[in-house]
């Protein structure tokens, strides 16, 4: 390669890199300085963020999860302290999704006070420990359908396996 050509390619490479950095820095980091809003912040800024793409983060409220795999429709509340926001999504819950778990959802906050999420992300802690004797870590791998059957109560518990009493 001639020196001129080499310089040209190096220049192009450099320009591409600088462009990519600027794109990332200005385009995405700016929006990401506040990665998600808490339920209280979302409600306080309801008028401002209504209909805009936004992220909401908090804890899945105990007793709020309602998963209908046949539609599919997942409903739950994301809470933090005293405030909570109702969330609806058509995405299936990831395997670590459960009540009391931290989550971040991406979507839009409607004027009806319901957050319609098109992306559901589970946030986990920085704690790692082995399972207790009674816990089975392999259970994480049960399929979503199995899990949902248990969750919605419409499952067929007890119907699997032979019943010894029947002839």
């Amino acid at each position, binding site marked *: 390669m001639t020196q001129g050509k080499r310089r040209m390619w190096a220049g192009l490479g450099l320009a591409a890199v600088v462009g990519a950095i600027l794109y990332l820095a200005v385009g995405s980091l700016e929006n990401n300085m506040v990665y998600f809003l808490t339920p209280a912040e979302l409600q306080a800024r309801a008028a401002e963020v209504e209909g805009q793409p936004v992220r909401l983060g908090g804890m899945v409220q105990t007793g709020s999860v309602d998963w209908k795999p046949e539609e599919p429709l997942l409903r739950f509340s994301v809470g933090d302290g005293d405030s909570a926001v109702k969330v609806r999504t058509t995405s299936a819950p990831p395997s670590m999704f459960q009540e009391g778990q931290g989550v971040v959802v991406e979507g839009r906050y409607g004027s009806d006070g319901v957050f319609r999420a098109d992306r559901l*992300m589970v946030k986990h802690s920085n704690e*790692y420990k082995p399972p207790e004797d009674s816990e089975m*870590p392999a259970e994480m791998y049960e399929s979503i359908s199995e899990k949902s059957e248990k969750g919605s109560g419409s499952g067929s518990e007890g119907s699997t396996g032979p019943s010894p009493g029947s002839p």
Partner: protein
Amino acid sequence: MERETRDRRHRWLGLAALAAVVVGTVWALFVAPPDAAQGEVQRLMYVHVPTAWIGMLSFFVVFVMSILYLVQRDPRWDMIAHSGVEIGVVFTALTLALGSLWAKPTWGIWWTWDPRLTTTAIMLIIYVGYLAVRGFAQDPEKRARWSAVVGIVAFVDVPIVYLSVTWWRTLHQPPSTARSIAPEMLWPLFLNLAAFTLVYLYLMLRRYRLAEAERQLEEETAIGR
């Protein structure tokens, strides 16, 4: 002759690094328990954390070598810095790839633009830019000078990456501490951190050896021209 002795010593270090990685991997996969919340997939920690550590360690070495070069103008500092950037880029790319593999089964997604992930991606791109700058300058002295400036400025992002999970809201969890990891998982993690550090040392020595050969070739070509 001197070079051969050095190569032989490097080979011993390479074998030690390999042995440490094998022991670390066996411990991580077969001896350490699975995680209560995440199950078996949590074992990715034993590679994801070490690759992240090596990336940052490598860029710190580049930072120090870049300063040393600007002060002393010794081409050897530039050669170490160049070697460090290449290795740091490889390990940072690995960190992102392994992190993505870990994110899918736990977070439920491959990628999100949270501050930790975004600043890490920027760090990778900046150091790829360092390598592009090296291709830009033909004159070795000018190249070393420009690279040293980039090597210093680029390091600004490294502590930002580390502290991003503390400063801002993220999906990525904050750094684990010795108290937040059970001892039977902490020891294999330490072992793997040590094993990867040996791998880093071995790769640095070999890459530096290559840099010497490159420099020699460059000088010979310059004389012949």
